[in-house]
């Protein structure tokens, strides 16, 4: 079994390089709203978190999910509904959305881990399409209209999210917190076992690991963090729509991860920013966005399998 590119083990002083990279990233994100439109930044941060969650599963667990939009979208709907119809404060709305995605992830995971490789991808795709049709027909999602005018409200009763900069701080905090959680997971014994399963599943089984448990846990964790991203996104845009549950969203997150670097730590963040920026600037060209995204897929797969950060890490001889 050939391995995925970019997924090199942390060697030598990569640990220190990663800390430096993290500090640079944090610094940039704190300074960014001074020069870049904050709503755009928040959108990119939500997608970056989504891509990181996806990368945890694919880059470190070797599991290709083509149905991650289901978690993003479901969490968005649930938190939007909770904030608007039930009048819950934003922290509980986000928590509710995340919980819904976690539960959905458990169901998906239990079904999908029964098949490996390409079948796994097809199963997750089919299951997420089922969620899409449910969201299209269910009364509470508003069908084609989605849930609009979701109130942002006061977080913990005293943080006013209607202020854009306050909201940015909250979104950044959520992003960094979840990012560190993923980082910690990757470097934990659990993450090591996950990598072992990715490299050689039969050997991991013969060493006595219950690989299905590990895969399921990784899947649920990834779904939960995707849900966190979706719930946050619905509060930022005050909107939850079918776009987020559609299968093309599942493709987009694959693209972000692939472009940034599969199995790297910072790659998905970079990939997400690049793709979101591209969509932003090319929006007026309509179908060209799709064509360019397709072309990026083809180029990445044929020539550029390590992705941006993977290539950078290779030049610097450090795992980023």
């Amino acid at each position, binding site marked *: 079994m050939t391995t995925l590119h970019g997924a090199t083990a942390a060697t030598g002083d990569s640990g220190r390089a990663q800390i430096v990279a993290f500090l640079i990233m944090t610094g940039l994100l704190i300074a960014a709203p001074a020069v870049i439109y904050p709503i755009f930044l928040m959108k990119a941060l939500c997608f970056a978190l989504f891509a990181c969650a996806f990368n945890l599963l694919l880059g470190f667990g070797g599991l*290709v999910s083509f149905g991650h939009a289901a978690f993003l979208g479901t969490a968005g709907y649930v938190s939007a509904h909770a904030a608007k119809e039930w009048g819950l404060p934003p922290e509980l709305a986000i928590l509710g959305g995340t919980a819904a995605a976690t539960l959905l992830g458990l169901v998906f995971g239990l079904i999908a881990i029964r098949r490996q490789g*390409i079948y796994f*991808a097809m199963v997750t795709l*089919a*299951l997420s*399409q089922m969620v899409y049709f449910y969201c299209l027909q269910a009364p509470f999602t508003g069908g084609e209209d989605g849930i609009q005018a979701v109130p942002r409200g006061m977080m913990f009763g005293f943080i006013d999210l209607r202020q854009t900069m306050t909201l940015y701080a909250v979104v950044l905090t959520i992003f960094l917190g979840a990012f560190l959680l993923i980082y910690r997971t990757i470097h934990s014994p659990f993450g090591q076992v996950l990598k072992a399963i990715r490299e050689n599943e039969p050997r991991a089984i013969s060493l006595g690991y219950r690989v299905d448990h590990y895969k399921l846990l990784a899947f649920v964790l990834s779904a939960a963090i995707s849900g966190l991203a979706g719930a946050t996104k619905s509060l930022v845009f005050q909107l939850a729509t079918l776009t987020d549950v559609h299968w093309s969203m599942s493709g987009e997150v694959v693209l972000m991860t692939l472009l940034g670097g599969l199995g790297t730590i910072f790659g998905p963040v970079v990939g997400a920013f690049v793709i979101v920026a591209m969509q932003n600037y090319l929006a007026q060209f309509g179908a060209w*966005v*799709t064509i360019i995204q397709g072309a990026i*897929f*083809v180029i990445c797969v044929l020539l550029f399998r390590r992705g941006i950060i993977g290539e950078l890490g290779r030049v610097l001889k450090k795992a980023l």
Partner: protein
Amino acid sequence: MSTIFGIPPQALFGQLLLGLINGSFYAMLSLGLAVIFGLLNIINFAHGALYMMGAFVAWFLLQHLGLGYWWALLLAPIAVGLVGMVFERAMLRHLYKLDHLYGLLLTFGLALIIEGLFRNGFGSSGQPYRIPAELQGGTNLGFMFLPNYRAWVVVASLVVCLATWFMIERTRLGAYLRAATENPALVQAFGINVPRMITLTYGFGVALAAFAGVLAAPIYQVNPLMGSNLIIVVFAVVVIGGMGSIMGSIVTGFALGIVEGLTKVFYPEASNTVIFVIMATVLLIKPAGLFGRSN
């Protein structure tokens, strides 16, 4: 007026026929996917886009060259098959030694490009395609009215599927193909040009999709997005059937089309999702699929 399970027979048989038609497309597309997967170990995500391309070639032939349906039925699969072979030679070939994931991602990218280009050229609305004169009208069977064209679609796809099955399971060429699926290195050592066989197989699988596209053109409108929604259902069909057996994918395709049609009669809300529900159930009971070999 008599009813069957409280449903007027016209509605029941009408939906059954519709299901059978959908099943024809599921069968042809999943058959192509299975043939390609068997030899290339690649799930061809571009299958839906190439099916759409087949329909557009038919439309183009009629609109700009004045060549009718029967010509399209012959020429569109050849044209799209050639395009597929170029894809295989230029791109897919470089991925066989890598993780299967990359084949999936590459063909996904190709699907996006093809669909985007057609959407740019033709917009999202459909182009009409007339039913050929020979197949217009219908036959009254007594219990229902059978449009001739729909009957033709079911028959044509059955013939094509069974011919493919015969070719793969009963001829010498098919024996080479099956042998190369099991062990390409050994077959190559016997002096058979396996890389060329791979190219031709991909071309053939893709041509099947284009053939289905031409058949679909007069029924559905010729639309850039007609393939992308279909392909996900076909993936579920493939998971249910398991890709181990050619006959398995044909039978599963038709059967699931009929099940979907019946669901439209008895519980329309679930008609979009019933195939996915069946997929989940099959995975829980028999993870390798109904006709698949466990890995």
